[in-house]
């Protein structure tokens, strides 16, 4: 047996969209394999195919050199593959051993559960793999890290030899992450093969034996971990082949008037983990400030903080001299800030509502659209028609729902809406993610026009080329902190990639 898992030209299409395009993955027995790539690169699709949750459109999967066709996770477990999901699937009110045995209970007299023998089995399993857990403890009393161990135990009990972990460290603290890596290495020593999906490069370097990089549904690199470094991986992950036509040619001097100031902004996610840590920056008048970083390093949370969807635990935000920390999105918009949210369909638009209704969202308080709190249908339609014309939005049915638009045209509605009330600052988060080149061009053009009018933009994007070609100044985020600031004219992509991987001369100082 050469490879534990081998895929040949594995392809998955959803309609016209190719999520996985001829993926070649080779996993050796008893190794820890990391699969890295940004959100939306196709990692999860690949894993779902390996775990039998999706059926490939084309290509083959070999397990222990034998071709397999898996129709459900049951087939996968039968083939010795176990998966630990990002969101744990545990019953909080049951104990550890009950969770592990769920669905595989040991019976007594055919009807009763043999609790004693179950506890013994689970304890033996814990001892074998050196897991420090109390089988009688209820899962609801466990920390996130321990819950994850219960998930792993569940799979080990089902005697799998290949363990897939989907973003295992997303919810863990740094200490818990270290413990997890130690656990995984122990499992490897005892003969298990482990696949970790992640976009955290430091963990790749710490944990894995080999690494495969996926970008845009394709394998763009496969190497032994000891032959590579974080910088190379970061470049492979974010390097783009999109050619951008719009360029920012009018750099704003850094001594221009400050209009937006963020000081020591800090927040925690719902798991109590600090995801944005003491971030400070300012935006000058007429400037585009780019915020770059590998996804999951706090940019999403930062945008939520700046746009009023998340509360800061510490720090301040001020705009034109006024304190706007922790204001509601409507107040922020009233203060003169436009917001293009990260997720087009979740936060930016409402698919089930008409184009017109979407064109006024967030500004439905203002005249002429709103008169005595009654909405003026004719004025709304007028506004909608203006936007459609100005932004070249292609619509089928003008009275139809937003759901009928393509991604690019839907995004244009958001940009048109947010710029329509002439804000003095625009927070643009992933303004062109996943849309066609034509729409990208229109949006970039409008953003630069807007800047030329003396307004400022905070541009958050995972497309490094977009950031580099539009921004006057770029700050890079790593692990919820700012790891550096560069000027795009004088900086190479490689240098930015380095910062995105958290490699920085005074990194150690910042950590403390």
């Amino acid at each position: 047996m050469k490879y534990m898992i081998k895929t040949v030209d594995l392809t998955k299409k959803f309609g016209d969209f190719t999520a996985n395009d001829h993926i070649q993955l080779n996993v050796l027995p008893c190794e820890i394999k990391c699969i890295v790539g940004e959100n939306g690169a196709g990692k999860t699709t690949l894993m779902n195919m390996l775990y039998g949750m999706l059926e490939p459109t084309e290509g083959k999967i070999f397990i222990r050199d034998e071709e397999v066709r898996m129709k459900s996770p049951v087939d996968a477990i039968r083939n010795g593959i176990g998966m630990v999901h990002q969101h744990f699937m545990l019953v909080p009110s049951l104990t550890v051993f009950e969770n592990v045995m769920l669905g595989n209970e040991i019976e007594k007299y055919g009807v009763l559960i043999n609790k004693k023998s179950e506890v013994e089995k689970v304890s033996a399993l814990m001892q074998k793999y050196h897991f420090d857990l109390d089988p009688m403890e209820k899962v609801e009393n466990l920390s996130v890290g321990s819950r994850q161990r219960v998930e792993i135990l569940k799979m080990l009990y089902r005697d799998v030899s290949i363990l897939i972990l989907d973003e295992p460290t997303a919810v863990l603290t740094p200490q818990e992450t270290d413990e997890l890596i130690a656990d995984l290495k122990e499992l490897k020593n005892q003969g298990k093969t482990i696949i970790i999906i992640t976009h955290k490069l430091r963990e790749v370097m710490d944990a894995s034996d080999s690494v495969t990089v996926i970008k845009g549904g394709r394998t763009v690199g496969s190497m032994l971990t000891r032959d590579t470094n974080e910088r190379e991986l970061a470049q492979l992950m974010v390097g783009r082949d999109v050619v951008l036509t719009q360029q920012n040619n009018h750099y704003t001097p850094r001594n221009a008037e400050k209009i937006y100031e963020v000081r020591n902004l800090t927040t925690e996610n719902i798991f109590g983990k600090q995801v944005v840590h003491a971030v400070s920056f300012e935006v000058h008048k007429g400037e585009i400030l780019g915020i770059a970083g590998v996804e999951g390093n706090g940019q999403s949370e930062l945008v939520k903080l700046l746009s009023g969807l998340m509360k800061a635990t510490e720090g301040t935000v001020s705009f034109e001299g006024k304190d706007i920390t922790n204001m509601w999105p409507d107040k922020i918009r009233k203060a003169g800030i436009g917001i293009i949210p990260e997720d087009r369909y979740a936060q930016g638009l409402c698919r089930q509502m008409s184009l017109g209704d979407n064109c006024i969202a967030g500004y439905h308080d203002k005249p002429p659209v709103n008169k005595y709190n009654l909405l003026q249908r004719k004025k709304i339609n007028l506004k909608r028609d203006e936007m459609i014309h100005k932004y070249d939005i292609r619509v089928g049915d003008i009275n139809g729902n937003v759901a009928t638009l393509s991604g690019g045209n839907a995004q244009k509605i958001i940009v048109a809406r947010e710029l329509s009330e002439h804000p003095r600052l625009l927070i643009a988060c992933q303004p062109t993610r996943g849309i066609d080149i034509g729409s990208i061009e229109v949006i970039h053009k409008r953003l630069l026009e807007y800047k030329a009018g003396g307004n400022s933009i905070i541009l958050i994007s995972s497309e490094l080329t977009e950031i580099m070609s539009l921004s006057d100044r770029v700050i890079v985020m790593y692990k919820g902190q700012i790891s550096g600031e560069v000027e795009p004219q004088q900086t190479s992509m490689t240098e930015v990639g380095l910062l995105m991987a958290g490699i920085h001369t005074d990194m150690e100082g910042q950590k403390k």
Partner: protein
Amino acid sequence: MNGKIEETVKAVLNRIVLVLLAFIIGGIVIFFIGENPLNVYYILFKKSFFTTTGFLNTLHYAGPMILTGLAIAITFKANIYNMGVEGSLLSGGFIAGILGAQLSCLPSVPLKIICLIAAALLGMGYAWIAAVLKIKFRANEMVVTLMLNYALAKVLEYLTTSVFRDLNAGYVSTKIVSNQAVFLRIFGRSRLTVFFFVILVILGFFYILMKKSKQGYVITAMGNNFEFAEATGMNVGKNIMILMLLSGALGGLAGGGWMLEDQYRYTLSFSGSPGLGWDGMLIALLGGHDPVGIFIAAVFYAGLKTGADSINMYTNVPKEIVALIQSMIVLFLAVQFFQKYKIPLFKKRAKEA
């Protein structure tokens, strides 16, 4: 406009089909009883829609259900599930009955206004409990409102059988309201009162609120995409409170009105069975959470109620056949309901796949 009209036509057709299905199943049962279903339905509709008194009675019974239907619709449409309209209605009816009896010194118009305002306020206060629990403690409003109904019914039962019991009545009830508080019947032999016009004004107000106003826009946005509503600056917490209070006020008003135009005293069967608040839920669903739809659905449903007695009188079919048809409508509506508002579980699965 094409898309919108098509959608509306589809929704109306859906409902006509389900009502027809219910009647067909009712018809089969009638056939086995040994009567001609068409004849029975003819009597049912003739009495409740095509005689003056019958039609006015139908409108009379539709009144409170229009209000409770609206009360349900404005919350359900925003994806908030206020199951406590029945409770608001009971508390509104109770307070209107007590005040109507106690404040007998007041002249007619002020007394009615006081009774109705008190009913609306108490209905609101009742809904406020669940709204606060939802906003401050994230308690599921569906569970809270549903359970509170029973708690409230027991409290009112206690008050009716002890403190406020009318000892002269031969059954458990509060004192009868004074003559000045009563809405008089003004259309010959029918039960219809002037309160029905109050209801029509309220309906008109809610038509504008839901269809034309900013609040209606917010309701639609919240109902379709909560995250979107929040991200575009609609203060979701504040709006939940507003909608719950509006819903409670409508429920309370429905109860207060029902007290002063039909019941005159609070008894343990004040709202009937299954209860006007619960009927409101059916009507809101049948009417597609749309004010016009709710009006039509309420009148149709009330017509079934009025016609039931005629069936009993003129045929061998028991009037319970109407209850059967009503429950069939509920059953088929439930199917429709789950198609339109997908259960989150299934939605998530579909997304992952």
